[in-house]
């Protein structure tokens, strides 16, 4: 199954003809780079017939910093802070992707303790990311209260990160062979105290927003992506799972401590905006379950198995590793020449870039307001698209 995408040039030179029965006119409307729905600086050129969306062409590149090219000058430990700045809402998972790839390629062993702490941290970050997404989606669709509640949880989880890592957003925590810092002695107690609270919060989210008639009307049966199409577009994460495809790297190729815990892969039924919304809420519950199973038995031991000033040289060849971030599969492809301690070439496979093209594939036919719902339900982070 293929999805044809016109280029911006083709769109700009195409004749504008309205084919609606009403006396409407076709317009080309720029949404962005500075636009509330842009969530950063994504430009979307929309061809409109009256209020109906005829065609959507995203124009990425307004935050393109050339991270992949920069990484060719950096050694593997120096690459990690730059992954924070791609998808900054799942910084820890991005760090993990690089660390995992380097560890697999260089044959570095990690301990149980390291993997358990990594998993707990990644799940906390997923909770934080989804809470933020929930708030922002509410705000996009006109429920400002949701924004305040979503950020309340973000701050509370953020306090744990601040204590352990010292950062609020750009974590730089998971390193090849271990962690940047050890956890504090009262870490487990604090997280355990937090979990029932977070469970209540998810229930509160349901009460606040899920039952709202206007909210449901704007999400249900809007922007349907069927499973085959989602897979053809290369979607991952909650977007593809909402279409009924049980693709979750945590379950399909378990890494970290995911192999040891019980959790469900949440899938939706038809793949509309509501499914994408609900899959994320259910994922928050599953994340809490995963942390509950791990938090009691954090093994003792060192927090890193290698010294950090050791030179890491990967064997010659192409190495690929991927993890499941809050938005989908984040992959790192490293081409190493086997001589230098820096990558010869490096590529990030970012989930948002593939998820972005869903708006092109499914928006035509919907109204502008539905387009907002669709883009909001995809949970896009623009620096991850542009890199």
């Amino acid at each position: 199954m293929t999805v044809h995408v016109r280029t911006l040039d083709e769109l700009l030179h195409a004749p504008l003809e309205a084919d609606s029965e009403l006396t409407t006119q076709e317009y080309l409307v720029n949404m962005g780079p500075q636009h509330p729905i842009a969530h950063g600086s994504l430009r979307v050129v929309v061809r409109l017939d009256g209020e109906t969306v005829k065609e959507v062409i995203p124009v990425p590149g307004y935050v393109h910093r050339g991270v992949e090219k920069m990484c060719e000058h950096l050694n593997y430990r120096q690459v990690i802070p730059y992954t924070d700045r791609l998808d900054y809402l799942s910084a820890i998972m991005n760090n993990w992707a690089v660390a995992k790839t380097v560890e697999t390629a260089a044959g570095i062993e990690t301990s149980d303790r390291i993997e358990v702490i990594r998993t707990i941290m990644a799940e906390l970050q997923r909770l934080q990311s989804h809470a933020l997404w929930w708030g922002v989606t509410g705000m996009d669709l006109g429920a400002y209260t949701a924004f305040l509640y979503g950020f309340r949880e973000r701050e509370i989880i953020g306090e744990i990160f601040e204590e352990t890592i010292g950062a609020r957003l750009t974590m730089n925590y998971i390193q090849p062979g271990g962690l940047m810092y050890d956890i504090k002695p009262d870490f487990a107690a604090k997280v355990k105290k937090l979990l029932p609270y977070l469970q209540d919060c998810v229930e509160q989210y349901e009460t606040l927003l899920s039952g709202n008639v206007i909210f449901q009307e704007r999400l249900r049966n809007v922007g349907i992506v069927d499973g085959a199409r989602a897979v053809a577009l290369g979607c991952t994460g909650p977007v593809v799972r909402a279409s009924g495809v049980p693709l979750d790297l945590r379950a399909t190729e378990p890494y970290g401590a995911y192999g040891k815990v019980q959790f469900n892969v949440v899938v939706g039924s038809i793949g509309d905006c509501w499914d994408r919304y609900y899959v994320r809420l259910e994922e928050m519950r599953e994340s809490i379950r995963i942390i509950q199973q791990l938090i009691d038995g954090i093994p003792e031991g060192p927090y890193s198995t290698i010294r950090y000033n050791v030179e890491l040289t990967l064997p010659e060849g192409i190495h690929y590793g991927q993890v499941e971030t809050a938005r989908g599969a984040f992959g790192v492809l490293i081409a190493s020449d086997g001589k230098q301690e820096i990558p010869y070439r490096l590529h990030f496979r970012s989930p948002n870039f593939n998820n972005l093209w869903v708006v092109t594939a499914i928006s035509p036919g919907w109204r502008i307001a539905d387009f907002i719902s669709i883009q909001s339900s995809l949970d896009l982070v623009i620096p991850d698209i542009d890199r």
Partner: protein
Amino acid sequence: MAITRLDAAINLARSNSLWPLMFGTKCCAIEMLMATGAAHHDLARFGAEVARASVRQADLMVIAGAIVKKMAPRMRLLYEQMAEPRYVIATGSCAISGGPFMYNSYTVVRGADEVVPVDVYVPGCPPRPEAFFWGLLTLQRMIREGETIREPGVRRKPVMAALPEDVSLHEIRAEIRAALANENVIDVTQAANQKPWARKVREWIQRASLR
């Protein structure tokens, strides 16, 4: 009954009702515009919570994140569309100097002040919301002691609103007061036109209007 200059009254009103523009490019936007706007940190305490999506209604541009060459003309355009008096806060290393993307990056503009004149710099990667508040307070102070209606656009030189380590709040206040007490002024309009990107953007606008 208090007697004051008209300038002082106007500046007091301006400083306490800054309307920020909803404009973020990167990670700093989460911290600067969203986390500060939410309940925990609450930008409303400083009278600056009315985040506007339209440039024409905003008078404070918070540059949150790296500005790349593709974005620079657009940001310049946004700046020129804002109504005067307009203020700019550059938050985070990327907006100050290019930050982590200073070396080896082929797209990042090394500092947003190459594109638009910046009033206050808030360092950090990203800065904490508290640091941003300090930058906002510094800007408010600059506005209150700043330009007059006789000479619009002539105001204090930019200030780095960094919170130094192991310094008490009194010392910081004294330092900022001393920095602001200097007679260093800058003509913002003139400075804006001298920026290297100004000419490029003018050409760009001309080309667009010809089309």
